[in-house]
């Protein structure tokens, strides 16, 4: 039988420069000082029986099963809580120990249901294993005494059950919630025999539990059990792969029965997540087999026509003929493509290759345009490489963290857990955010400073922090002298020292008391290791790129780049944002961030691809929309993105999509963009293909096919076949060959291959001859560009201003349970936590408008209006409202504007002047049009499916 057990060392690994040697049953083993006897025993190949210990948690010493004998010591100490001493002689097995262990097991089993054969944990139960290991044969106490066998099962959580009758109160779940996840939702209630695990006063669903599943994974019995396992039984094999949600890029073991996933278990050896996960990655994978999946290619001439299901061949031929027709009529530059951060590196690489080589232009862009393109520009300019500087493990060495414009507990929950652990250990925390995000104050974490700035004032705050560092002489002079361009620094120093950049002078813009900024600057500058983590709250502004450069400036100023514990750390939104950017998805750059104007670069790619690469940059996504409305852009191939929902100023986007003569959408669902499409190529989920993702720490990890593509082709195969239909041959038999081509053409990837990834698990680029096993942190000796460049970062207020008509500022974001446009998570039980987008409003703003909690309100901007339900919360500051954008009918982006970052055109999602009013009608005009259009398109899709023989009109 397949075993899904992995080696459990019982207690965590210890970091120490010193080692000690102990003898386990006579076998010598050398371990770091501080290592437990239990762990040393496992390293010596000896499994000491255990129940309350597991190597993801600190030792607890409650189950008394792991007792050992140690020469020269009295009694039988617990091996999990006893650290090794040099020369220690340990005996793990004797008659005395065996009797003690059997006695312990007898007590456990006397109060445990004997339903092993029908128990969902059968075959994967540590209690069962230990009963076997200690040789339990009978229970002298009988089973009739007082017990816990009639307690009610808690099935409130959609993904797992809590059966207290099977609980041995080992506290692993409580400790996992505390140590691994950092939520502290669980506790042991009562004492002695009354002890029981509790998730608050009611049940798991209504508690503080965030459903990360760490407790379920830690449970040694079936007390906490995945409902998927209850339904399906234990897996028969497992495949290691990478999560397709956020930019943390967690490694998972997809546990399978045949080609059906029955459980996703975070991979203990995954270097990004170290065995942890969130509710999305662990549980929200049911979308992959949701009935809404598109399984057949479809075409139609006009968007008012019914869809017609066709063969792949017909779809490719039709799409190719349309591209050719449009190029013949409107020119080569009238076509383009959009790659996806949800697709693999290989797929992204192929799509940009298709556009450059097959379409013959550079009109290719990626959804990173609307999230982290300013990171690419800002970090390339200042440091020389368009990527974050650290690995996630770096946070373990950080003494002071700045979290700027990011909400890690919702957006990047697994990394947030790592960060919270470090914060609980004592690292300082400065949160810079308009909202009181959870990190500001939560169990055992409290920010030293929450700089609750006004939306749009990041650059002012960061300049003010740097001003304090410079004017108070807190800068890292030696570091700057050795590592940075001194001409640039001198110019920047004069600029930043000016009084107008002081916290006091900028207070009217920032809304943050100057003394708080001064305190925060001192805390950060004086910390031995300071790290800055930031997100879309920085980039999605008219000064997004400037904001990124203020971060690089502050990091260089304080000497905080080039070693563990420091750095500039962009928290990427989607799973493969970094990879999509690396793979040449931007219209001005070929893979490896090399500008298309460079003749040598064009020659390199042109020779490999057998074409002439155009020397001019192509259109970015917002430019594509403008050109479409203008009539010069007529055909678009969109892979794995839902631009109709995710991009700002929805009505402008809709107008652009309606202007296209051929819109090809490749997706796993008929998303909002597909409603404007003429061709549908069914996409494949991450479970249906091989490839790689690159996470926020530049870590390239394998994505492995565990089930066949539902529509017959993996996404990379679709692009290959489409290219062939266009007359451009792509000769790949497997994605590994695409990676080989990437490695041939891209210096930072030259050492990457599937063989290496299979061997090492993952690697962080640059991975080449200089760093054959990758680069955990960058710019160690010098910056990629040579000397670090301080850039002048003048604060300039956004053109979006509040007025009497639009007195509030809207800022948008995401929530834990939903992901991006919600296409995946809305098709899972995660809906139970967030089934509609809502507007968060400060109590005073609500009171002034006569709005009460739960009211329907309209939100109107200069661009449009929509209605949502209202949440009144003091998380918001006065004058600022917030909404998520996970549900298409909410129309959050109907309200957002066309304003964008000066350097990259990244939209300014984070600042929109709005008015909010209580309404009686539930739907705005736009929403009513949306409803009608959605109804029409649903009907056209149904007609096509019902009548596959219907000819194309």
């Amino acid at each position: 039988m397949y075993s899904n057990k992995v080696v459990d060392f019982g207690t965590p690994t210890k970091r120490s420069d010193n080692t000690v040697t102990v003898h386990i049953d006579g076998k010598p083993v050398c371990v770091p000082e501080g290592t437990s006897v239990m762990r040393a025993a496992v390293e010596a190949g000896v499994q000491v029986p255990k129940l309350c210990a597991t190597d993801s948690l600190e030792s607890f010493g409650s189950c008394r099963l792991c007792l050992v004998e140690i020469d020269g010591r009295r009694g039988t100490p617990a091996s999990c809580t006893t650290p090794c001493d040099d020369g220690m002689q340990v005996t793990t097995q004797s008659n005395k120990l065996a009797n003690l262990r059997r006695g312990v097991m007898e007590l456990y089993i006397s109060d445990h249901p004997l339903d092993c054969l029908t128990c969902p944990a059968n075959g994967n139960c540590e209690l069962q294993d230990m009963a076997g290991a200690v040789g339990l044969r009978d229970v002298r106490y009988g089973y009739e005494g007082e017990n816990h066998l009639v307690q009610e099962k808690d099935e409130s959580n959609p993904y797992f059950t809590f059966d207290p009758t099977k609980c041995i109160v080992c506290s692993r779940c409580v400790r996992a919630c505390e140590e691994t996840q950092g939520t502290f939702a669980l506790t042991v209630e009562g004492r002695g025999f009354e002890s029981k695990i509790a998730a608050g006063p009611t049940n798991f669903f209504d508690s503080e539990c965030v459903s990360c599943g760490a407790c379920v994974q830690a449970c040694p019995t079936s007390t906490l059990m995945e409902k998927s396992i209850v339904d399906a039984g234990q897996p028969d094999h497992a495949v290691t792969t990478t999560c397709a949600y956020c930019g943390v890029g967690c490694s998972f073991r997809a546990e399978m029965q045949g080609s059906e996933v029955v459980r996703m278990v975070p991979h203990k050896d995954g270097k990004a997540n170290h065995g942890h996960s969130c509710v999305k990655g662990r549980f929200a994978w049911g979308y992959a087999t949701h009935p809404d999946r598109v399984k057949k290619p479809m075409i139609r001439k006009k968007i008012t026509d019914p869809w017609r299901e066709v063969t792949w061949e017909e779809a490719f031929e039709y799409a190719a003929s349309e591209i050719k027709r449009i190029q013949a009529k409107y020119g080569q530059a009238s076509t383009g493509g959009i790659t996806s951060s949800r697709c693999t590196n290989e797929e992204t690489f192929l799509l940009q290759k298709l556009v450059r080589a097959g379409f013959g232009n550079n009109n290719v862009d990626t959804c990173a345009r609307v999230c982290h393109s300013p990171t690419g520009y800002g970090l390339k300019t200042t440091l020389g490489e368009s990527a974050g500087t650290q690995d996630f493990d770096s946070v373990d060495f950080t003494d002071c963290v700045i979290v700027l414009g990011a909400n890690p507990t919702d957006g990047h929950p697994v990394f947030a857990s790592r960060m919270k652990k470090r914060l609980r250990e004592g690292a300082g925390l400065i949160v810079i955010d308009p909202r009181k995000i959870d990190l500001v104050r939560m169990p055992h974490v409290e920010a030293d400073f929450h700089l609750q700035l006004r939306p749009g004032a990041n650059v002012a705050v960061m300049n003010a922090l740097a001003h304090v560092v410079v004017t108070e002489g807190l800068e890292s002079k030696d570091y700057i002298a050795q590592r940075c361009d001194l001409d640039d620094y001198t110019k920047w120093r004069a600029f930043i020292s000016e009084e107008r950049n002081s916290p006091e002078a900028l207070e009217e813009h920032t809304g943050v008391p100057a003394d708080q900024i001064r305190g925060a600057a001192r805390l950060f500058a004086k910390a031995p290791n300071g790290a800055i983590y930031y997100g879309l709250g920085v980039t999605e502004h008219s000064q997004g790129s400037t904001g990124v450069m203020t971060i690089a400036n502050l990091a260089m100023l304080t000497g905080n780049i080039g070693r563990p514990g420091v750095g500039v750390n962009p928290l990427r939104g989607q799973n493969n944002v970094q990879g999509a950017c690396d793979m040449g998805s931007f219209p001005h750059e070929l893979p490896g961030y090399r500008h298309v104007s460079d003749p040598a670069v064009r020659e390199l790619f042109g020779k490999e691809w057998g074409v002439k690469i155009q020397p001019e940059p192509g259109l970015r996504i917002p430019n594509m929309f403008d050109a479409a409305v203008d009539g010069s852009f007529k055909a678009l191939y969109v892979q794995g993105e839902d631009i109709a929902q995710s991009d700002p100023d929805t009505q402008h986007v809709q107008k652009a999509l309606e202007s296209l003569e051929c819109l090809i959408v490749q997706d796993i669902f008929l998303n909002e963009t597909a409603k404007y499409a003429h061709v549908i190529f069914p996409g494949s989920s991450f479970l249906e293909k091989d490839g790689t993702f690159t996470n926020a720490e530049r870590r390239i990890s394998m994505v492995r096919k565990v089930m066949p593509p539902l529509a017959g082709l993996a996404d990379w195969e679709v692009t290959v076949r489409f290219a062939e239909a266009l007359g451009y041959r792509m000769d790949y038999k497997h994605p590994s060959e695409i990676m080989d081509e990437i490695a041939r053409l891209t210096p930072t990837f030259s050492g990457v291959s599937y063989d290496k990834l299979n061997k090492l698990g993952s690697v962080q680029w640059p991975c080449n001859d200089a760093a054959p096993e990758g680069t955990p942190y960058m710019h160690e000796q010098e910056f990629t560009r040579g000397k670090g460049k301080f850039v002048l970062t003048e604060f300039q207020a956004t053109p979006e201003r509040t007025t009497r008509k639009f007195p509030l500022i809207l800022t948008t974001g995401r929530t834990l349970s939903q992901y991006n446009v919600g296409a995946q998570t809305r098709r899972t039980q995660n809906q139970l936590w967030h089934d509609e987008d809502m507007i968060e409003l400060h109590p005073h703003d609500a009171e002034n408008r006569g709005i009460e909690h739960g009211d329907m309100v309209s939100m109107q901007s200069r661009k449009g209006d929509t209605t949502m339900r209202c949440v009144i919360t003091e998380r918001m500051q006065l004058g600022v409202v917030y909404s998520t954008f996970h549900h298409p009918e909410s129309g959050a982006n109907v309200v957002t504007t066309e304003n964008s970052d000066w350097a990259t055109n990244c939209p300014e999602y984070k600042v929109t002047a709005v008015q909010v009013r209580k309404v009686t009608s539930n739907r705005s005009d736009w929403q009513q049009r949306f409803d009608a259009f959605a109804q029409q398109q649903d009907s056209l899709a149904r007609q096509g499916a019902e009548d596959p023989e219907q000819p194309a009109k």
Partner: protein
Amino acid sequence: MDANKLVTMANQIASFFATDPDRTAAVAGTANHIQKFWEPRMRKTLLAAFDDGGDHGMHELVVAALTEHRAGLEPVA
């Protein structure tokens, strides 16, 4: 392409580089950014607006960039 929108975008770029006390560098920075990141039809539209003599409210650095770096901003034939 909407010339007014492109002028706004060009002015944003100029506003960033305008902080540089070295005016020559500021003009070159503005021109270089437009050249490196703007697709030819965008540059053509901006240049056409510049050439039509109308008051488009261009930042003076944009005017200088289009004047002094014209050759680099003309799309490659």
